[in-house]
């Protein structure tokens, strides 16, 4: 199993540009999550999904969109990049309801200038 994979690893965007951060998992996990990590702030939840076709907002959804057309993939879309979106983004997944831990991808480091 590759686990949770994320692409790209690094990206520099100009203000106003758009991009999609890719996330895929091969563990047949129903639940998937997107977080951003800023220094000293821990992880903040952006969006999550409990299954294909179902998504919901987390703590900090503004400026982002997601879709979940398959169990495996959960892309995160930034439509109009802003400097405040400079961060490290992590995708995570877990099996289903119950006391299961989340598995994290390696992260995407995004800089908006």
């Amino acid at each position, binding site marked *: 199993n590759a686990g949770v994979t994320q692409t790209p690893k690094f990206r520099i965007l100009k203000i106003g540009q758009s991009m999609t951060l890719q996330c895929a998992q091969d563990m047949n996990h129903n639940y998937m999550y997107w977080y951003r990590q800023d220094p000293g702030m821990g992880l903040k939840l952006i969006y999550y999904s409990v299954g294909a076709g179902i998504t919901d907002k987390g703590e900090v959804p503004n400026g982002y969109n997601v879709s979940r057309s398959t169990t495996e993939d959960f892309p995160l879309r930034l439509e109009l990049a802003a400097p405040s979106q400079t961060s490290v983004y992590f995708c995570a997944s877990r099996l289903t309801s119950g*006391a299961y831990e989340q598995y994290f991808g390696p*992260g995407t480091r995004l800089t908006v200038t």
Partner: protein
Amino acid sequence: AQSVAQPEDQVNVAEGNPLTVKCTYSVSGNPYLFWYVQYPNRGLQFLLKYITGDNLVKGSYGFEAEFNKSQTSFHLKKPSALVSDSALYFCAVREVRDYKLSFGAGTTVTVRA
């Protein structure tokens, strides 16, 4: 609502000494509690979790954590720290019926040789 507090930004210990990383939590119902570790430029790795039952939970790499319901704490411990334990540690909580984890801000552990 649920939240986690990690009162120490940094913990410094000498190799071979005991290591403790503190965590307190707040949830409206029963909690699932987790510890994760993050090495530089990597994603988060699961260390251990508390679901129910025995208050002392053992996890990966010789770590353990003690659940204390009356003090709403879940401190991470290791009897004898190694230099390789130097990393960023996150405590997280999820109310049993919720989908989402809430993370603390993280504690940086430095183990000196």
